[in-house]
């Protein structure tokens, strides 16, 4: 991904829009008694499109903004989401994303990882209350939601960042019609 100031503005807009959508919509709806969490999927999509560095920085920024808005200790969400964005970026750098199922599967797997890491982090920091086994159910259902929401999120972000994507530019160049004799 070629990050120009204009693309940077688009990434910031994506992060802010995703945050508002999460806090004002997804966190307040319940399906199967669980609220979907789209933020790991956004970090995964940015990592898949921009590489490990872009994924890590975006994940860190999303986490920091989230912790600021829900007024919790800063750093916990940043650490989890930067790992998720980084891992998605590493996948993109090592393997080709040729199958259309790769983004939703990565969203699902890495959302599960994010939820489990966040739970581990909270347990390490100390939770002063008993913990219900329903936490595990919540994590699994959130990751299933991430699979289904991963497709539109990935495609939407890909569309928004299209001018910066190297592969798309190459495809578009090769798809341009050529005039005979020109």
């Amino acid at each position, binding site marked *: 991904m070629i990050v120009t100031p204009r693309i940077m503005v688009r990434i910031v807009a994506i992060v*802010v829009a995703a*945050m*508002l*959508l*999460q*806090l*004002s*919509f*997804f*966190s*307040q*709806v*319940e*399906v*199967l*008694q669980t*609220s979907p*969490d789209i*933020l790991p999927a956004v970090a995964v999509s940015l990592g898949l499109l921009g590489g*490990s*560095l872009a994924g*890590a*920085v975006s994940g*860190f920024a999303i*986490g*920091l*903004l*989230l*912790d*600021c*808005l*829900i*007024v*919790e*200790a*800063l*750093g*916990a969400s*940043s*650490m989890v989401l*930067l790992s998720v964005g*980084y891992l998605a970026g590493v996948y993109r750098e090592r393997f080709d994303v040729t199958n259309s199922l790769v983004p939703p599967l990565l969203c699902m797997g890495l959302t599960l990882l994010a*939820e489990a890491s*966040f*739970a581990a982090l*909270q347990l390490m*920091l100390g*939770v*002063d*209350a*008993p*913990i*219900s*086994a*329903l*936490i595990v159910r*919540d994590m699994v259902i959130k990751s299933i939601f991430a699979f289904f929401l991963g497709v539109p999120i990935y495609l939407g972000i890909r569309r928004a960042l299209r001018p910066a994507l190297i592969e798309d530019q190459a495809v578009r160049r090769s798809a341009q019609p050529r005039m005979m004799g020109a």
Partner: protein
Amino acid sequence: MYRKQVRRRRAVLALLVVSSFALLTATYGQRSGGLQRGVSAVFGPFQEGADRALKPARDLVNWFDQTFEARGQNERLQDEVEQLRSEVAAGKVALSENNQLRKLVGLQRAGELPLGFEPVTGRVIGKSPTVWYSTVTIDHGTSSGVRVNDPVINGDGLVGRITSATRGTAQVTLITDHTSAVSAMALTEDQGIQGVIKPEVGNPDDLILDFIDSNQHVRTSQLVVTAGFKARGLASFYPYGIPIGRVTDATIAEQEASQQVHVRPFADLRNLQFVQVLTK
């Protein structure tokens, strides 16, 4: 060239990880830093706008979910209605007695709200995405008289308390947050059994009334209200008498072994739309 890129990438990653640890160390246990207040103040109007714009879509999704859930709840609710009918009759008698006693001792009729508090009604405009933090953001802040530690209720019962406030928004930490602890009382016919209401993380339909006296036995379906203690300069944030929930599981074995019983909160903490902040 490639090595330089890899080194730069690793350096940035290390910097981000170290920054996360540093932030966590510096801000852990503090719920209201300057940065958080600033960001909340900036985002408050946008959150409020997004909340209003997305309400129809949110209601539609919740309607589908609740319709499926309602099928299973129907039978349980019918049993509950029968039980409540008999309780209402008993309650009316008690209310009449209570009114007479109040007149006798010359007390002012308190109404439904605790005395000395002014309610500020707020709309929920944001909610934490993780079960580890049970917090919601409301659209009223210090400009409406909302202060940190003000108790928050809704039509059903206790919801939580204010833990952070900007001019236009405030953060409510729900009673299901793992940092929450409310001094409470299970009401029996002649006395109250004191304890502390704590959550069970991940299950917002179950609270635990902990630290109860193992010599006194709490029974299923007893009402639990805030205890509102005041002693040696220390006072509970919550005034006496706000309903919290009803005891659902109170085995004698559990009470004797771990001094706790299970309570189902009255307030539906999963679907909060409006809350009332009790300001002084």
